């Protein structure tokens, strides 16, 4: 076996990433041709002192409403609008700390045991003061049954599962979900290694 090349180390995005990443309009995934439920996900990122992180960069990756990723490896014959990227970036507001993602609710994608995962959005969080990205997932509070059966949520200690579930704002239409990310503390968000 030939020796592996070593991975290039990660470095912080620093305070100036918004020159290139996360600019105007990147926080919107339009409703694709195949339709779907328009949703907003919003919240804040908090540091270990419970101050909001004023310069977090969140990246989102999701399947379309039919549960297909716009990626060459997802070869399933499900409708997919080629203009649906499934990718967005949102920055926390420098003053308020609030980020906002406007997208469509993702469908269910296969898990590794022949069933389907609960609807979720993958999230990459970076900021000044973070040398490496952290990876988490957004699940939805109104998908109780699917969440209950989700193999990955089941691996999360019950007491921490709530950190991965976005709360539906009662009566909101289009739906608004609240999802905060906490780097530290008793209710620290679950971050994944994969």
């Amino acid at each position, binding site marked *: *076996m*030939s020796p*592996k*090349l*070593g*991975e*290039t*180390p*990660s*470095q*912080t*995005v*620093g*305070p*100036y*990433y918004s*020159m*290139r*990443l996360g600019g105007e309009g990147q926080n919107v995934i339009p409703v694709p041709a195949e339709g779907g439920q328009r949703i907003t996900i919003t919240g804040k990122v908090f*540091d*270990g*002192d419970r101050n909001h992180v004023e310069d977090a960069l969140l*990246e989102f*990756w999701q399947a379309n409403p039919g549960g297909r*990723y716009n*990626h060459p*490896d*997802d*070869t*399933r*014959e499900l409708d997919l609008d080629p203009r649906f*990227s*499934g*990718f967005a970036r949102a920055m926390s507001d420098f003053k308020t700390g609030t980020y906002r993602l406007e997208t469509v609710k993702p469908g269910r*994608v*296969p898990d*590794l045991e022949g069933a389907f*995962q609960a609807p979720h959005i*993958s999230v*990459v969080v970076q900021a000044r*003061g*973070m*040398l*490496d*990205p*952290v*990876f988490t*997932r957004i699940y939805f509070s109104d998908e109780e049954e699917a969440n209950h059966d989700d193999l*990955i949520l089941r*691996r*999360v200690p019950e007491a921490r599962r709530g950190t991965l579930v976005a709360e539906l704002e009662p009566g909101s239409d289009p739906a608004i979900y609240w999802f905060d990310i906490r*780097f*530290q503390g008793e209710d*620290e*968000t*679950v*971050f*994944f*290694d*994969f």
Partner: protein
Amino acid sequence: MTEPLIRHYGPKAYSDHPPFRYPDYKSTVKRSPTHDLLSIVATLSETTGPGPIWSDISEEDADLTLNAGTGSPAIGERIIVTGHVLDENGNGVPGTILEIWQANACGRYAHWRETAFPAPLDPNFLGVGQCRTNETGEYRFTTIKPGPYPWGNHPNAWRPAHIHFSVLGPALLTRLVTQMYFEGDPLFPLDPIYNSAPEHSRERMVAHYDHDVTEENWALGYRFDIVLRGELSMLEELDES
């Protein structure tokens, strides 16, 4: 096909990357997780990612000396930065999107948050660009060599000259943001961000002067390869199982 392709990647080499918490870089202390990461087997959600589609829909914008669109070139030492995006197995990674941002020749970022450092802005330099790797995984930027700049981490702190690289490869799990440095920078021993990477892997972030890249009467050439996580070989897969 009714089943998607779920690729098998090797584990992330955490020992090649900085720790989350690195007190010499002060802001990491409150911005790092304290729990262990929760290990999961990557699903389709992690083995796919936005790289290919983002690469498809993004315009090439790889000449930072001209992309301010003013009609006048940026001021500074014109350089070419080129190299390959590779996976751990040494294969080029085509269709990778690279987004870069950097300070100008004086070490000044064209960003509203930069107010403390009294270095001039260059109206002909934005300091941002993007390009895609070709079918062999190769990329190429033309830019200005950025200057070092001060920051507030500790007294008389200066960052070595660097270019920020965002790399969207084939999968969510290959996501990488790094910084490219220039060989021989005297600020290396003093910079906690550079030194946050383990000693054995720091050098991988350093671009080297390459006279074969240098263009006569035009620009100096630097070579910088980027290595992302790669798929397991069949043998390794057997080992894993």
